[in-house]
């Protein structure tokens, strides 16, 4: 990353008369746009810039130099599974045999693409311990919504229309209740016990004939395995509800413990977390949804099926919940995940999860003398610190104490991305660290040393942390101004 700030916008590079494209001569000049009735045509000129090709290339290259990615450095962003994004995946996704395919092509001419989709469906089913998958949802949140639609469709088909409530733990990511609300379900929150897991006693009185299901992630958002999951699943099933597994935290479970075997009926997987596809600065992701046997009919259309003659078909099933995408979702992301699955194979898939857990526990053990660890014991792929320990400037009673935000910003100076901060909401100073399995001990040791150094700085040089970062392309930004004097386009600058 280049620490010199670039900061220009493409509109500022525009010079009238410059062009950055080349197109063939128009051979169909007989018909002109101006033949259209004037009132159907655009009157206003556009703001689009006029820039030559090299200037465009330099512009975006300079911008990229002010960006931090997994390829730049360690990215311990909790709950996001920022593992290495293999380059062979990118090359496979760019093969012309996929890139040039039009989604309206007859299936006879896209058998390879459908076979790949089908193979990924089957691989995910095996890894999840579920019967069937759809890869159509575009992202994790979209998968959640789709999975909840499956649950509603299941109750609807049984004629059980009064099940309009869904149970969500209070530690859940905000997306869970939001997806439920969009799906027309009311949210019932279940409390956590002091050890951070679902309080089964609090759950019991919530269960009734109005419960559509329960959403959980296991390990939960604190990185702790919900040991009571068999009992929870049994209770929810006994009351007639279905169990939904939020696959955000699937990585540590790979090949060790499968959601289907834990008693979950429906789940989504984030291919951009567990299966190594790039996050792209916030999309495109992919949120495949899996279901246990008996629910597969309800998966969204179109469905990819293997026919008896060995060919693949796209089917529109009338039992389905409907469609959540125009075509087969973010197909290009699915190709990347397939390359990753093949590379790892059955031997390495289970190892990925285990190493991610080892890495997380290693950091936790090395730093718990400096940062408050609210819940001790083995974590899975991630864990949460509740800010600095009191002796390192983290004393809440001290009005000027060093906060999690300060630590996060100081990390940027040292060339690391910050952990996820202020989530989960259970702790005031939450700092959620997820190293993933692709980081070496050497990298972890460097990170640990920096985190210790920051703790000592917090004790001895508080002001320096309060004003961090110091060594980044730009420094702390004025969030309040961004909201109070809103500027969302170049025109309003």
């Amino acid at each position, binding site marked *: 990353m280049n620490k010199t700030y670039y900061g220009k916008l493409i509109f500022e590079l525009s010079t009238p008369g410059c062009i950055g494209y080349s197109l063939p001569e*128009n051979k169909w000049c007989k018909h002109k746009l101006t033949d259209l009735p004037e009132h159907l045509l655009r009157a*206003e000129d556009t703001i*689009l810039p006029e820039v030559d090709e090299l200037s465009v290339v330099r512009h975006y290259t300079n911008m990229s130099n002010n960006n931090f990615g997994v390829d730049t450095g360690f990215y311990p962003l909790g709950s996001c599974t920022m593992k290495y994004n293999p380059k062979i995946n990118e090359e496979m996704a760019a093969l012309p045999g996929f890139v040039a395919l039009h989604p309206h092509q007859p299936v006879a001419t896209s058998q390879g693409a459908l076979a790949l989709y089908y193979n990924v469906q089957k691989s995910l089913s095996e890894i999840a311990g579920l019967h069937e998958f759809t890869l159509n949802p575009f992202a994790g949140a979209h998968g959640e919504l789709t999975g909840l639609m499956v649950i509603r469709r299941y109750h609807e088909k049984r004629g059980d229309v009064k099940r309009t409530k869904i149970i969500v733990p209070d530690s859940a*990511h905000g997306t869970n209740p939001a997806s439920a609300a969009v799906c027309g379900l009311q949210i019932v929150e279940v409390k956590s016990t002091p050890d951070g897991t679902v309080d089964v006693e609090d759950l019991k009185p919530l269960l009734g004939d109005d419960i559509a299901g329960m959403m959980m992630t296991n390990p939960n958002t604190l990185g702790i395995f919900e*040991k009571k999951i068999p009992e929870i699943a049994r209770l929810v099933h006994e009351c007639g509800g279905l169990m939904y597994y939020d696959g955000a935290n699937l990585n540590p479970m790979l090949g060790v413990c499968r959601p289907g075997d834990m008693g979950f009926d429906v789940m989504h997987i984030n291919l951009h977390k567990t299966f190594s596809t790039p996050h*792209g600065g916030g999309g495109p992701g992919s949120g495949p949804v899996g279901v246990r046997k008996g629910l597969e009919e309800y998966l969204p259309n179109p469905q990819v099926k293997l026919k008896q003659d060995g060919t693949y078909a796209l089917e529109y099933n009338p039992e389905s919940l409907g469609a959540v995408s125009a*075509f087969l979702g973010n197909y290009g992301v699915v190709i990347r995940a397939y390359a990753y*699955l093949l590379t790892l194979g059955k031997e390495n898939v289970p190892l990925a999860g285990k190493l991610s857990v080892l890495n997380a526990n290693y950091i936790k053990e090395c730093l718990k003398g400096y940062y408050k660890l609210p819940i001790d014991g083995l974590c899975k792929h991630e864990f949460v610190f509740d800010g600095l320990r009191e002796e390192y400037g983290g004393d809440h009673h001290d009005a000027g104490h060093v906060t999690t935000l300060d630590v996060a910003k100081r990390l940027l100076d040292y060339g690391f991305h910050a952990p996820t901060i202020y989530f989960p909401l259970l702790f005031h100073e939450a700092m959620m660290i997820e190293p993933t399995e692709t980081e070496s001990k050497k990298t972890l040791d460097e990170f640990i040393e920096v985190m210790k150094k920051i703790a000592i700085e917090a004790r001895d040089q508080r002001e320096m942390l309060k004003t961090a970062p110091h060594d980044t392309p730009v*420094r702390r930004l004025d969030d309040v101004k961004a909201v109070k004097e809103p500027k969302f386009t170049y025109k309003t600058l």
Partner: protein
Amino acid sequence: MKTENGKLTRRFPFSHFRFHIVKPMKYFPHTANDLQEMLKVVGVGSLEELYSEIPEELIFNKELNLPSAMSEIEVRRVIGQLAQENKPLVSFAGAGVYDHYTPSVVPYIASRSEFSTSYTPYQAEISQGTLQYIFEYQTMMADLTGMDISNASMYDGSTATAEAMMMCVAAAKKRNKVLISETFNPAVMRVVETYAKYHGVDLVKVGAKDGVTDMQALHALLEGDDVAGVLVAQPNYYGIIEDFSGLAEKCHAHKALLAINTMASALGVLKSPGEWGADIACGEAQSLGIPTCYGGPYIGYLCTTNALIRKMPGRLVGATTDVDGKRCFVLTMQAREQHIRREKATSNICTAQGFMCLYVASYLALMGKKGLHEVNEISYGGAHELKERLLGIEGFAEAYLGQPFLNEFTLRYSGNIDALQGYLCQKGFIAGVKAEGKADEMIFAVTEQRSAEEMDRFLCAIAEGVKESINQ
């Protein structure tokens, strides 16, 4: 399971740990030495012991039924083979997806992994690259649609339209009915219908007349004064440019919002949603430099007026300054977002298609005002040429006589459409799309990628195919 020194231990039938030492894996950087040291620090004896709290009956003790690990050479072979089993065709099809040209600079810039391997730009100090291109994207889309603001994108055009529907309902507070024109692309319609069903929106279809929205029927439905919003498409499924004169005024008189879904490339030349007086502009922006890639990833856009900013879902990037007074960019207005609204959320969208904003921004940066116009001019000329010449072939007839169109049009075909398409497929063409819900209509599209020679060959093949399919 047994207890040793108060700690649970368990014996596993086979140890991946041992396997690892035998055969290192390129994505796992741990040496055998590292593992020993780390396990010691953590205080466990093996990788398996890291899972000792998990009830034994939940542990998966078998081998996964997956292929064995492959080398890069083997991965390349397997996936390369699948890619070859697809047959890329010369496209005269559109129906929502257009094979406009992607300049080589676009994928080149997109290959910068500082962009692709980053997360949502939460740490603005080290994410100015992402924030800047999203800000550029927002500027370009707001300008093209003629609206005040654009969000940082949606998954695709269909979900963007569904979000526009939910936005209408959220803005109206006490109204729950949304009208949608039947001239929408059925692939989009299906998604909107699904969202409406589960979100509890009363979605009412407005019929079509001569291939365009039946405005009289639409006006009649507005009279009930219970409509939250109206969704119309431009150009519509049949390629026809609809005339929305007076529609916005009519909607607003009845306190309904107007949302216009426009194919993004067309925004460069057709009257913009803002110019029509729309409150929301939404649609698919695949046509701005994104390859067809079997349906995705694409990008949906959603733009609106300043008045509706707090009802708009998705991320927003705003300009601000840092402590040194430098102009910079940051994710803002986050209080609208799902993770804060939780059960009050009217959208569950978290991120977007962030990376695809870079495709659109760099494409539009290269094409500029003139290039986008030229793309439309060539597509327009090609589509009109193709229509004229197809009408000269036996079996083809006008479906919507006199309706204006841009790059796409619909014709009636009296022969067997499937047989004709099958024949053309063998000749290397996608011959338009069979119009859903119409037994005898085909939709054709032309982009600047088609050469005069390709069109000649296509027309020859069609003429032959028509004979074949009539003979069948």
